[in-house]
């Protein structure tokens, strides 16, 4: 077994090219659990959480996008200045594990593990994030929607490294809600991210822990867009139940030891309704609430 700490991106990619079967270690919060439990064995580990290029972020004012290096931690995403670019990502970050976990866990690791319950992932899905991959052969960008192919399965090829994600900085409400049985350190039973793009007149709703991958709820989104007055920040209250019902219909939950499919579907309905109400708090004049 070998363990190598990479300090530059080139170094990391060279190591992965030399040993394509190597395991990439970022914050360690997923991988180390598997190693400690004996659920995974590996011959080579490449540590990337000190790679300078992955530890940086950049806001591009021209495109108004934020590129977040893969080794940015959830503790960093929770606080200024990064929290200002995506409030929903900051909210999701605050629900990740514990302070100790957030200090170590990286957004790249969260993306790479591709758990349906990954706390940051509904935000990336709602924002139509792009995942950046690199290898010694070059780089490629993959829409987040196409990145995960199933629970903990992704399009990452041997020798490839997740270098970061890019999200748009939207003008409009963003909210993340997560249901767990405990008030800290809990895996999501169901989660949802709602993001409104006031300029583009879109409403995006992404759902976590209710399918093999993070889901969008396109019918619900359409209902919301049709019922919303983006300039006034209002929505036809009668559309809200329909929106919530469509969100619940989009979920594909299962029964497991953490909860039931029926509960998860209901939770999505409630979270979606509450998020939409937060997004459009002002009632339409004359409408009953």
């Amino acid at each position, binding site marked *: 077994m070998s363990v190598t700490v990479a300090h530059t991106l080139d170094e990391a990619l060279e190591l992965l090219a030399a040993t394509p079967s190597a395991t990439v270690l970022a914050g360690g919060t997923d991988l180390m659990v598997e190693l400690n*439990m*004996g659920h995974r064995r590996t011959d080579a580990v490449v540590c990337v959480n000190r790679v300078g290029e992955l530890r940086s972020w950049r806001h591009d004012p021209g495109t108004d996008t934020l590129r977040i290096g893969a080794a940015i931690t959830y503790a960093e995403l929770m606080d200024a200045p990064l929290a200002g670019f995506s409030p929903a990502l900051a*909210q999701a970050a*605050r*629900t990740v594990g514990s302070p100790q976990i957030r200090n170590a866990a990286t957004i790249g690791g969260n993306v790479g593990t591709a758990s349906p319950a990954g706390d940051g992932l509904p935000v990336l899905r709602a924002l139509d994030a792009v995942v950046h991959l690199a290898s010694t052969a070059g780089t490629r960008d993959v829409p987040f929607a196409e990145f995960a192919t199933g629970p903990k399965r992704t399009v990452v090829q041997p020798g490839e490294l997740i270098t970061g994600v890019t999200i748009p900085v939207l003008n409009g409400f963003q*909210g*993340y*809600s*997560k*249901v*767990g*049985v*405990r*008030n*800290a*350190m*809990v*895996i*999501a*039973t169901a*989660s949802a991210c709602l993001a409104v793009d006031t300029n583009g007149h879109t409403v995006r709703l992404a759902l976590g822990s209710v399918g093999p991958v993070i889901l969008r709820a396109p019918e619900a989104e359409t209902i919301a867009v049709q019922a919303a007055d983006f300039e006034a920040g209002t929505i036809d209250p009668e559309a809200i139940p329909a929106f919530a019902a469509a969100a619940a219909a989009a979920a594909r939950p299962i029964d*497991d*030891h*953490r*909860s*039931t499919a*029926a*509960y998860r579907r*209901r*939770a999505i309905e*409630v*979270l979606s309704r*509450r998020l939409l109400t*937060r997004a459009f708090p002002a009632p339409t004049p004359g409408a009953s609430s």
Partner: protein
Amino acid sequence: MSATTATTTTTTTTTTTGAPVTGRLGDSPVRPDGIAKVQGSFAFSGDLSADGSLWGATLRSPHPYARIVSIDLSGAWAINGVEAVVTAEDVPGKPTYGLIDQDQPVFASEYVRYVGEPVAAVAANHPETCRRALAAIRVEYEVLEPLTDPERAADGTFPPIHPNGNVFRHQRIVRGDTEATGEVVVESDYEIGMQDQAFLGLEAALAIPDPGGEGVELYVATQWLHEDRGQIAACLDLPAEKVRLTLGGVGGAFGAREDISLQVHTCLLALRTGRPVRIAYSREESFLGHVHRHPARIWMRHHATRDGKIVKIEARIVMDGGAYASTSSAVLINAVTHMQGPYKCENAVVDGWAVRTNHLPCGAMRGFGVVQACFAHEGQMDRLAAACGLDPVEIRLRNAMETGDRLITGQVIENVAPVRECILETAALPLPDEPVGGHDGDPMRLPGGAGLTADRSHIRRGIGWGVAIKNLMYSEGFDDFSTARVTLRDGVASLKFATAEVGQGFVTLAGQIARSVLGVDDVVLEPIDTTVGSAGSTSASRQTWMSGGAVDGACRLVREQLFAHVGAQHGVDPLRLAIDGRDVVDTMGDLCVPVAQATAGLVFEDTFEHHHRPTEELDENGQGNCHTAFAFVAHRAVVDVDPELGLVKVVQIATAQDVGRALNPLSVIGQIEGGIAQGVGLAVMEEIVQIDGRVRNANFTDYLLPTFLDMPDVVATLIEHPDPMAPLGAKGVGEPPCISSTPAVVAAIRDAIGKDLTRTPVRPSDIVF
């Protein structure tokens, strides 16, 4: 030994002459092991190692019920670094152990009866080598249909899964007029899930073989050193004196360390290899490797008068004891004999079964059968209140038990029984002054916390009550005792006992007793081991009473020696002498000799065994004075509930507890707050989930313990009426906090949502649907 044993601690209090002795009974001196614990230098059992020690590990059954066809160990032996591989064939003595019935195999031989049952063990040079060796052992199983429905064990419709049958014990209680009826009748089914003790300090032990393998020394975190020794010696076929146990630092216990887990395995591997062996369980293994709180199903019917006085109770209880007996029969007796709760009741018909299934074995956990009974009787009291148009406090006051009342077993409550006072004092505690969500709007105050699932408008607040009676110490004729030896030398008292310090603070209390009785500042605690008589178990809220009584008794014997000596020296009748501060004084004269001076160069020593009064077995109708003593407690819970998502935030627990006398008020508060945390856990999140006999959440990701953000504020009143039956006037305080806090929280949730809830823990889906 590279680590010193955890339990040798010295307390020194530097005081100026003339100042009163501090750290006496009624004070709250700090723990003698406190500084070591905060600095990380206190040695827990998992921190102990010895030169050349090997690691041990256990192979466990993957099946809830199966016949072992064959075991092939060759793969494990082939791994470099493996020093021993043992199975049932290698157990030299008794093949089974157990606290009451010895039916649990050291290693499964013919059948495995639960997922996690030990099948083999290895010793090797590294934990990873052990893991690989275990993976290389080939066991062929013939998988059998598991017994997973305790009702089928109770009703006899499932073939026996063990030669001793599927019923550990059936006990009926019949009292008074069984035909009595009331104007008001309420009934319901209740269900209690399987709770885990989830102490943080995982099972760990170090065994050091004697040269020649004639004996073994075991450092282990346990609740009862002498009982462990007896069971280990029998399995190893060694005389008891050849098995010497020393308490390794104990990282919590709560009942889970009362049974044998890794003790025999560790010793056996050490004797096999002739080298020290350490075993340290992982969290998953800990869930599989110790007994748990019994899941129970209870049907209960109350008959009452129109004004809410209980006329008769009826109950049927089935407790799932899992695959082996452990203490199931005693847990059942506690459940059936506490079914009336702390309420007057003349007539009763109660039927209880503790049964064997292919689930994880169950045994002792804080509350010991009374938690289950209390969840049902308190649910019933709220039903009765509703049926009679009374509020929850009034219905309980009208029925509150008093000293002199009889249990449904016919036993008279002779202890102080301030049930009414517990309820009234709890009711007098202030309700939370902040509104839902608090004044600062911190989302962490709402159900769902950082998940931002709710706004204030979604939340409903509820208030609920729970009141409990709990027996203290052991029952049914067991001659329960504890031993202490005290040596007074040069003004310093040395205390020797085998009382397991598991975090509760007996090490603090023991010093307080010695200072109070002997007028000394300095108390030395000798190692806690088997070189002195048994202290009994640190369980059943018994050590303050039992070992406190033993230390107190030994100190008094030594004080008599001291008075005799001082009296002889000064020509004063020893009966006139007393301790005042640090001095021996003549109560009828002006003699005053400092204890330190009187004992200079001298040694006074004595040993005392404290026994509590005898108890009886129950007869076939469940009648008899089976319990020793009782304590009482009331809880009031305030919860905020999100009815649409089923999320709960417990806001406050108020409690008044009958403690007899608070010997160390800070420790009592610690027991109350800690016990309530476990009660809250059982109310809203803690449950081992087994599906088809397989545990689905044997880890801290999915077995959820309350965190800082789940634990409410606790406001507490200590009800102090020293109990004349207790050696120090103090009742045990460990268990009551976790008994009625659970039904109080569940009642508060019911109150918030206006819906019936009959199962604990309450799951979000139980609230939503």
